[in-house]
């Protein structure tokens, strides 16, 4: 067991706990936008794909990387866009709100 592995497991464990605690508090009202937002955030996998394209180590890795960047970018753009559209719609009837 290398130390990078141990570090990774620590990070994973802590992030999972933070995720549980933070997301438990999300109002059920917002579960749909929550899912589209996590979807957009998850598309951070694009960084791995960018490296594959940018390093161009083999033809296979380049082609797969290109497709991966396209797929992830569409999730980033589409995910943030639709989350924003959804959240804009949530209005309260209380007139005090801006």
């Amino acid at each position, binding site marked *: 067991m290398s130390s*990078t*592995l141990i*570090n*990774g497991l620590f*990070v*994973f464990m802590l992030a999972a706990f933070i*995720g*549980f605690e*933070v*997301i438990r*508090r999300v109002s*059920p*009202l*917002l*579960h*749909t936008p929550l*899912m*589209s*937002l*996590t*979807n*957009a*955030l*998850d*598309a*951070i*996998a*694009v*960084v*791995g794909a*960018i490296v594959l*394209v*940018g*390093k*161009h180590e083999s033809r296979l*890795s*380049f082609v*797969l*990387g*290109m*497709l*991966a*960047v396209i*797929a*992830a*970018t*569409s999730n980033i*753009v*589409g*995910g*943030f*866009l*639709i*989350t924003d559209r959804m*959240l804009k*719609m*949530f209005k*309260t009837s*209380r007139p005090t*709100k801006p």
Partner: protein
Amino acid sequence: MNTLPVTQPVIEITYLVASILFILSLKWMSSPSTARHGIWAGEIGMLLAIGGTLLQHGIVDYKWIAIALVLGTCVGIPLGLVQMTAVPQRTALSHAFGAFCVTLVGTAEFYLRSPQIPRFTMTVLSTEVILGSLTFTGSLMAAGKLQEVLPQRPITYKGQNLVNLFLLAIAIAGAGYLVLHPGARQLFPLMLGISLLFGVLMIIPIGGADMPTVISLLNSYAGLSAAAMGFVLDSKLLIIAGALDGSSGLILSIIMSKAMNRSFGNVLFGAFGQVQATAAAGQEARTVRSATAEEAAAILSAANKVVVVPGYGMAVAQAQHKVRELYDALSKRGVDVRFAIHPVAGRMPGHMNVLLAEADIPYDRLVEMDDINGDFPQTDVALVIGANDVTNPAARTDSASPIYGMPILDVDKARTVMVIKRSMSPGFAGIDNPLYYLDKTLMLFGDAKSFVNDIVRELAGGGS
């Protein structure tokens, strides 16, 4: 490269800041008043992370990166502009895209590094590819079912679970062999292919009503596969984002499975959605009372408190805007109108909330099941629009019912119940609903949208 010692810490710091922003982004989603800050945080985090990555040592091909980013944006914009009623299938599709990306990167990494892959790396790499590929095909199937390109009815056959488990076991065994012998390149496509097949077979037996749980579960799988990719690439940012997404999906699937009274183990193994159409045969012909829009309007306008219970039928009929007109018309007459939201109403978590918010219904009028159930005895009219199983009192009373034990909205406790429904045909799960035969229940037969429209017209024309 004498710039290397400088850029590496810079990159790491952009990743650190991006991680913080991602966590804040989710934290701000806890309330509608801060949620839009969450989007900004997420977007800034994402830009930072991508910017940092571009600084990375060894990246030479910026032109193609730019082309791919532009192409991805072109695909993403239409996906961000779909109609609100199409959000469930859009979400399933984006799970598929995310998983597709992870699978491709995993595959590329395998062929770049094989046969020099340490055992641990190969373990997480196989996890990444198996989870990613089954999520990819599974999500495509789910999207197909939600878009009704594929049949929504569950398709089951004998020994289905056994076949599925067997396939998964082969894929895992393949992964095990690869961990020990990472040079066995010919085994990799087999593992990939079986996982892709497993994803399809996993979703085949699942019906539309179970989609909220399935979408959440696929969300979780997509996150976990991204976290596994983070281990492969030794990227803490990816591990964090994947873990956040994974736990989010897991929490949602737990909430959904509780709301359907299914055990969590049942959900994890995907062996669900098999509520058989135990046809309510041998029923004596029971009578129902039906009413016209005019009568319904009269009862509604005489009420003090009305609770509307929306379901998937409202989404299908696109009736949310008409429901808003009804809400306005009744509110103007001083009727207190609220909406009761069952956690699994619709096809994904929070589906009804988004549709009603789209129709400009204030979100403080949308009340969760546990908060509104106590109010039904004091409610004059419960108006059920396109919901069925979530209002079925058999879940409380009939231990022989397939949905026995599922938490429901206690609409039968309201003084009058009105149900807008196209016909008496049973709901998705094929379960008869005793609610319809109660003396206090009035069936309003018709399309949800046009019937609500008729009620609104009666309210407007019927004098003040």
